[in-house]
């Protein structure tokens, strides 16, 4: 059984990042778009932890950074959901296709 190395973890995190970006660009539901952004942020967390463990075990910056990322992601999601609730009140929908008053 092969021990997973840095490249395996980086492959997973990069794939997660681009799955998140793809989901953000293709999904039309606001909650799903927010979930895609969480995927992006968590791929970054995996990156930080992997670099910390495999490449720079003596420098704990990466570990601390990931804790801050989790906290800020929660704050951002809270504001985003409040905005989405307000959008739902005015548009009766959380589909981005229905929010189309501003164009060109």
């Amino acid at each position: 059984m092969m021990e997973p190395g840095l490249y395996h973890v980086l492959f997973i995190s990069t794939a997660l990042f681009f799955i998140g970006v793809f989901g953000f660009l293709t999904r039309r539901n606001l909650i799903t778009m927010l979930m895609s952004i969480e995927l992006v942020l968590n791929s970054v967390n995996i990156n930080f932890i992997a670099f910390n463990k495999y490449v720079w075990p003596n420098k704990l910056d990466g570990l601390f950074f990931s804790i801050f990322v989790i906290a800020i992601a929660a704050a951002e999601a809270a504001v985003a959901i409040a905005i989405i609730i307000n959008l739902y009140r005015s548009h009766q929908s959380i589909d981005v296709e229905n929010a189309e008053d501003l164009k060109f």
Partner: protein
Amino acid sequence: MLNDFLLLMKAELALAFILFLVLILKVGKEITNERLLALIQLLLLGNFIFGFFFIESGSLFGGMFTTNGLIAFQKSIISLGIYLISLLFSDWLKKSELLPEFFILLLSAVLGMFFLISSGNLLMFYLSVELATIPVAAMANFDLDKKISSEASMKMILSSALSSGVLLFGISLIYGATGTISFDQIPALLDGNGLQILAFVFLFTAFAFKLSIVPFHLWTADVYEGSPIAVTSFLSVISKGAITFILLTTLYKVFAPMHDLWYNMVMLLSVITMVVGNLFALRQQNIKRFLAFSSIAQVGFILLGISSHSMEGTSSVVYFVLIYVFSNLAAFGVAGAISQAAGKERIEDYKGLYQTNPLISWVLALSLFSLAGIPPTAGFFGKLFLITAGASKGNYFFITVAALNMIISLYYYLRIVSAVFMDTNHQPIPKINLDHSTKLGMIICGAGIILIGLLSWVYDYITALSF
């Protein structure tokens, strides 16, 4: 130790003091909007003046927070901007039911910008970018009953969330490639390998999102049109200025060893940004949307100055942002006054404005001349220094394109001036009664537009601070 802490962080501490004072006044006993606004204006003026005293340079918390004369001056520009916003939009602010909340959000965003300009570490940088954007997204939703306001705010929070994801991915790659997140240690460890280049591209993409550089500008016009005008002006002047300042630091200090790489990138993006911003501005009918595209074109000129990577680059960009604060805030102030009094935001409604409202028309004309770069307004000198700095690299093809873009921009700026002064309108906008603080704000803006260009010691002062 405590002395150092108090002196070096005095701008942040003063701002936090005002922020908490507003919060306490909000939960305290009933106070009328007029008196509260007057108090806040006084405090912001005090904050601006306080910015010029006790300037020290040094760093705190192991290099996470740095400050020096130039950073203190940049913070003063931002303080001046929020003071002008509180003056210019006083009519709208007085009628708002949520006046304290507006200033709490605004001041916390500004606090984030202060920490952003001072940050000396990628962790601090990320945290302060978030503190500077999340409250602004909430502010964009301030017209709670308007559909477009909630749409604008949704677009803003989603695009800024994605851009901060991209930023974080870039930071994580830099950490992987160099093993440090401190601005002081990164330059020595950069050797231009593939991972570092990829990391830089991600980081610059995030900057491009926040600064609305083409091709990442698509959120800008929608957010600007949907938000209340006070918020739009804050977004287009203050947050652009703060991000420009930190972009200067990152490119000139942290990524200085990769200069050959980013020079081409910045030059190309600068030209594309100018051309696209100008061409889209030509066809706009809504004044806020028009100013959004014009601000995209101005960012192109700022990038031209940044690309020079020299002391002139720093000083010309800071000088241009100072002028940009005056001229763009004057334009937004006029648009806000008209929108508040008459509810009109289309450019064709501005026809014949001069017959009914001469003062507003002159302020608008001055600000548009300054944005277009016509002497003797300050905008001319700002653009002159930016182009001179950009030309120091000897890349004359790009400089020619930039100069041609100034001619295109003349057409659409002067289109508004001619509508205001020359065209007649059967139903012109009625005479608007400005209150005293709006009038004071417009006069300060107009005086700034003329004087900053004529008083040469302003530019000399900035040059003396630059490095």
